[in-house]
């Protein structure tokens, strides 16, 4: 072992290669280790010709490497060139496998890794940390020594490998770049998740390629596509089954791979082993996030949460001294951030303590409008100290946190948000106090909330509209914490999570039961309450069971069913913020109906006896609870009575309700439905959507499922907790003032939202050129006419000099267009409607149906 490098950088993505570039310019002894045989594998794997975007635009780039928005190829070319020019010491095909300190054991520095087994058991593993220099072991057995290690391996992780004999043969591959590359081969795709399905369909798409494609799934075939392929999106599952029915490819259910040989694969099935021809295997069996590897190096994460990131100091140092983490792995998923951090981390390692972070101007802008001249650092300190839930954060976390949040100043009397306004952000009071108007008819009834506390948590948790108007009680500074930032915060600071949960439970109960209850009255109830996750379809109450707990729906929604005449009949739909279980508590007896989750939900389980005490102490509340109960009993009685006389209608009502719930309506806030007994198939809805949105339609009328002439087309449902928002690097997806989930201009076209939306409503496309006006089409036949122009026309009429990026596009509920949804307004027959599920799934519909 010869040299000990000053710094070893693992991973050559934007973060790693920028760090290496800085080290080279400073003349530090360094080495850049890259797993693959090229730089920056994540970007290398982008689609060919992808337009890479440089957001956020206000952020200045600080790096020895260059980066401007442009085509993937040009950017990679430039990076390769610069890396050479700077004299970076790169080692390709060098995958780091383990890192160990070679110095003395660091006393008292033990990292405990908790591993959760499938059965819920937790095993603990202790890792003693050793001082630098570190020995980095590569997968090929080579060892490299360095005083400092910079982790910049991104979040892509490693694909899970095939474990059967022969799984390491060269014709087993884990990625498919170009399905048109292969001809006349017998190809087996292992794993029927989205990636596997897309690959298999791609390979079988063009029959002229002559491939024989088989996709293998472990699970059995079920009656519905969704259950047959539980890890895939329904649209993909449907398309795959369609391809199979069309004879394009084969699907093998309940099959595992027993072994692989060149030219053959052996499956193990229920009927024993079967040897089949196979020239190529594409294994898409998921990928392991890099977390396990990093933890093994002694690096602690902020929590066990899936969203958690490594715990870092303000200079990106992890809990293992001398090991630094930057880039996407540190929680900064944009190329510019990554490159800046690469530069910064080397400066820090090199002893530069003066360096100001490059995001300073962005934060300055955030604090610009606040009263009192303070520096960014002072503001950050003030927020952190004053707001209870932020107390546990370090300065680096605070900076990152503020990038996703906003600081706002309100004068006394300013409205912060209004009742029934949509919004999923959380507010924290940094200075001053606010007043919550709890009674819409009497604005003098208020509940004060003081400095340091939070409000708006109902919107954050349930995704539903604001429950009350909140005004500033004095001049006030608040931090508005976006949903993403709030989720990150909760995963980073466990105490913040607890605090938010407690406050939200208390407020939810107070708000729900009203009647002048005070926090003290329900202290015991809150203390004994438990939050429980409920899987879709899982019942929290079963008809005929004993029990007197009350359940409050905190996240998601539930459906209530009753067995009538041997069949489950749908009674009602309960959105988040409602409670169930009061009948058994008040009237005694067994549960009168079954309540089960329509989607993945969370409930607060309240101890019946504790709640009973509250009821007894508050006659007002008891009266109200009895009233609620009576109105529910009325509905039940109504439906039961109808069941005898109009059983067809009730079955239909039940059927429609179940169909809608199956199609994800339980998490929708606004969904497009088409009454197919009125729809004449003119597609004017699609045309109208395209014509009011840059020439691209955001709905596919014909696609989607139908039941009893009710059709749910492919169009955004504006989910309560939009799946599409989860993984958007520039945070371009937000909820607007009409409740719409929309994508703003900062979209970088990465396609994550498209993959994450379970309803397949997002498409990636570029804006077509502007069409001639309607009148010039009508009178002179200019242009392609109303609706989305054909790809051919768009291509022929676009300016070849301008490169337009493909971006994610989806329905924005026609926000900002007076009159609302164009698709609905433009339907000549009234077939298309947009509804909220709780408005739609009511008994009133049953009455109308009957009429």
């Amino acid at each position, binding site marked *: 072992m010869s040299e000990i490098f000053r710094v070893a950088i693992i991973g050559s993505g934007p973060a790693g290669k920028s760090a290496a570039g800085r080290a080279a310019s400073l003349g530090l002894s360094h080495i850049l280790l890259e797993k693959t045989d090229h730089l920056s594998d994540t970007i290398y794997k982008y689609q060919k010709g992808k337009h890479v975007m440089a957001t956020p*635009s*206000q952020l200045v780039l600080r790096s020895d490497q260059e980066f401007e928005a442009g085509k993937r190829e040009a950017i990679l070319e430039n990076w390769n060139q610069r890396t050479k020019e700077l004299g970076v010491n790169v080692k390709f095909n060098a995958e780091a496998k383990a890192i160990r300190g070679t110095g003395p054991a660091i006393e008292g520095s033990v990292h405990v890794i908790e591993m959760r087994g499938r059965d819920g058991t937790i095993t603990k593993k202790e890792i003693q940390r050793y001082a630098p220099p570190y020995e980095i072991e590569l997968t090929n057995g080579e060892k490299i020594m360095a005083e400092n290690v910079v982790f910049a391996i991104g979040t892509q992780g490693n694909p899970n490998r095939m474990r059967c004999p022969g799984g390491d043969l060269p014709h087993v591959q884990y990625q498919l770049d170009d399905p048109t590359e292969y001809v006349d081969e017998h190809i087996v795709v292992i794993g029927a998740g989205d990636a596997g399905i897309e690959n298999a369909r791609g390979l079988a798409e063009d*029959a002229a390629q002559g491939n024989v494609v088989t996709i293998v799934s472990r699970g059995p075939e079920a009656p*519905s*596509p969704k259950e047959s392929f539980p890890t895939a999106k329904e649209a993909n599952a*449907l398309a795959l*089954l*369609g*391809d199979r*029915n*069309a*004879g*394009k490819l084969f699907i093998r259910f309940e099959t595992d791979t027993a072994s692989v040989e060149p030219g053959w694969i052996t499956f193990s099935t229920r009927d024993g082993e079967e040897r089949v021809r196979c020239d190529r295997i594409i294994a898409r069996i998921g990928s392991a996030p890099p977390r396990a590897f990093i933890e093994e190096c002694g690096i602690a994460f902020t929590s066990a949460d899936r969203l958690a990131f490594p715990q870092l100091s303000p200079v990106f140092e992890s809990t293992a001294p001398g090991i630094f983490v930057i880039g996407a792995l540190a929680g900064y998923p944009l190329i510019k951030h990554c490159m800046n951090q690469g530069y910064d981390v080397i400066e820090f390692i090199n002893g530069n303590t003066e360096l100001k972070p490059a995001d300073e101007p962005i934060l300055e*802008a955030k604090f610009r409008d606040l009263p009192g001249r303070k520096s960014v650092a002072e503001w950050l300190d003030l927020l952190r100290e004053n707001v209870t839930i932020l107390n546990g954060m370090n300065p680096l976390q605070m900076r990152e946190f503020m990038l996703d949040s906003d600081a706002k100043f309100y004068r006394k009397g300013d409205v912060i948000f209004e009742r029934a306004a949509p919004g999923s952000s959380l507010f924290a009071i940094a200075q001053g106090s606010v007043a919550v108007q709890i009674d819409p008819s009497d604005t003098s009834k208020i509940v004060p909330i003081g400095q340091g506390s939070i409000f708006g948590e109902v919107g954050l948790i349930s995704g539903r509209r604001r429950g009350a108007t909140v005004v500033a009680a004095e001049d006030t500074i608040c931090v508005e914490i976006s949903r993403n930032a709030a989720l990150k915060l909760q995963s980073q600071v466990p105490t913040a999570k607890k605090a938010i949960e407690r406050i939200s439970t208390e407020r939810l109960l107070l708000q729900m039961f009203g009647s002048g209850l005070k926090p003290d009255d329900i202290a015991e109830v809150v203390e004994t309450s438990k939050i429980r996750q409920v899987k879709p379809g899982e019942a929290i109450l079963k008809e005929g069971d004993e029990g007197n707990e009350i359940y409050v729906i905190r996240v998601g929604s539930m459906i209530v069913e009753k067995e009538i005449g041997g069949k489950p009949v749908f009674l009602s739909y309960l959105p988040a913020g409602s409670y169930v279980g009061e009948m058994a508590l008040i009237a005694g007896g067994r549960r009168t109906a079954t309540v089960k989750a329509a989607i993945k939900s969370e409930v607060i389980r309240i101890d019946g006896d504790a709640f009973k005490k509250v009821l007894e102490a508050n006659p007002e509340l008891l009266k109200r609870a009895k009233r609620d109960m009576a109105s529910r009993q009325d509905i039940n009685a109504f439906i039961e009575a109808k069941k005898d006389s109009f059983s067809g209608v009730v079955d239909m009502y039940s059927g429609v309700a179940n169909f809608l719930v199956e199609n994800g309506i339980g998490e929708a806030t606004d969904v497009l439905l088409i*009454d*197919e*007994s*009125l*729809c*004449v*198939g003119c597609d*004017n809805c699609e*045309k*109208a959507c395209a014509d*009011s949105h840059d020439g691209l339609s955001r709905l596919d009328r*014909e*696609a*989607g*499922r*139908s039941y009893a*002439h009710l059709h749910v087309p492919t169009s955004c449902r504006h989910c309560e907790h939009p799946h599409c928002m989860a993984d958007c690097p520039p945070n371009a997806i937000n909820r607007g*003032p*009409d409740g719409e989930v*929309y994508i*703003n201009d900062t979209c970088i076209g990465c396609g994550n939202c498209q993959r994450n939306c379970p309803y397949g409503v997002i498409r990636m496309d570029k804006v077509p050129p502007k069409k001639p006006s*309607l009148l010039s089409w*009508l009178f002179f036949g200019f242009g392609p006419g*109303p609706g989305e122009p054909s790809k051919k026309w768009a291509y022929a009429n676009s300016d070849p000099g301008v490169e337009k990026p493909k971006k994610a596009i989806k329905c924005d509920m026609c*926000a*900002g*267009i*007076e*009159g*609302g949804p*164009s698709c*609905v*307004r*433009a*339907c*000549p*027959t*009234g*077939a298309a*409607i*947009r*509804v*909220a599920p709780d*408005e739609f799934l009511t008994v*009133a*519909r049953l009455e109308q149906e009957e009429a």
Partner: protein
Amino acid sequence: MATQAQPAAPAVRKKTTGRQRNSMHDGFLRHRNFRWMKIATVLSITCLVSYFLVDVQPRHNGGSWYGYTLGTIGALLILWLTCLGLRKRAITPGGWSLKAWTSAHVYLGLSLIVIGTLHTGFQLGWNVHTLAWSLMMIVIISGIFGIYFYATLPDNLSNNRADSDGAVTERMMIEQLRSLDRQLHDAAQPLDPAQAALVQASLEQDPFDGNFFQRIGNSYRGCETRAAIAELRRMRAYQPRMGDDPLDKVDGLLQRKESTLARLRKHLQIKSMLQVWLFVHVPMTFALLAALSAHIFSVFFYW
């Protein structure tokens, strides 16, 4: 420093005005509890009653003050009815709903039967005036057919598309056909030339080559797929049975192709019926506008 460019603030999104929500919906015919039907009925009855009350000498005709009034109303109505075509395609912001427009269009259009006919004073003859009236009646009658189709066909369209896992789209039907063709092509390889030729004929026939009348009547007499099934079965009846006959597979595929074709053809038939009346309605509207202009022009200049 004062002139340093500030990053453009993102446009603030505001609540949209005029957003309407209605979860209880009704179709265009029942729109707002038949509002336009009521209005049109009142309009027609008023015209009818006044026709008998107003005494025009020597007899009712288009040239009296009363005739002028009805004529003006009628002409304006026709112009407005024509505007539906524009409204349908000009997706401007605002509180309009095409459903309401269609509802008004239908009922006011029907009231033209009364208004237009009373305007003539039943003086019909072989002239440009009567031409205008007849064209108007043709447009209206075609509209009545349209309503009939709009009221009865959508259910069928939807049923035909319905499927155990949701609904198939037109694109999916075409895809299915393509892939069945590919399989047929492979499966037909072992057949003898005479049999293969039958399959080939089915493959070569473009499912869209039927003409308009075939499409709307859903009668494709020259369907090669159906012919191939029948002929292959006939041929096989004289052949000794053996296990693993390639004809079995071909027969199965042909049957699946036929049922897919049947579904697609039904789909196209219903879709054409939903449109065919517009091929009369719209061109006749333009003819009507021309005749109407000629009628008005001649009335004022060649009295």
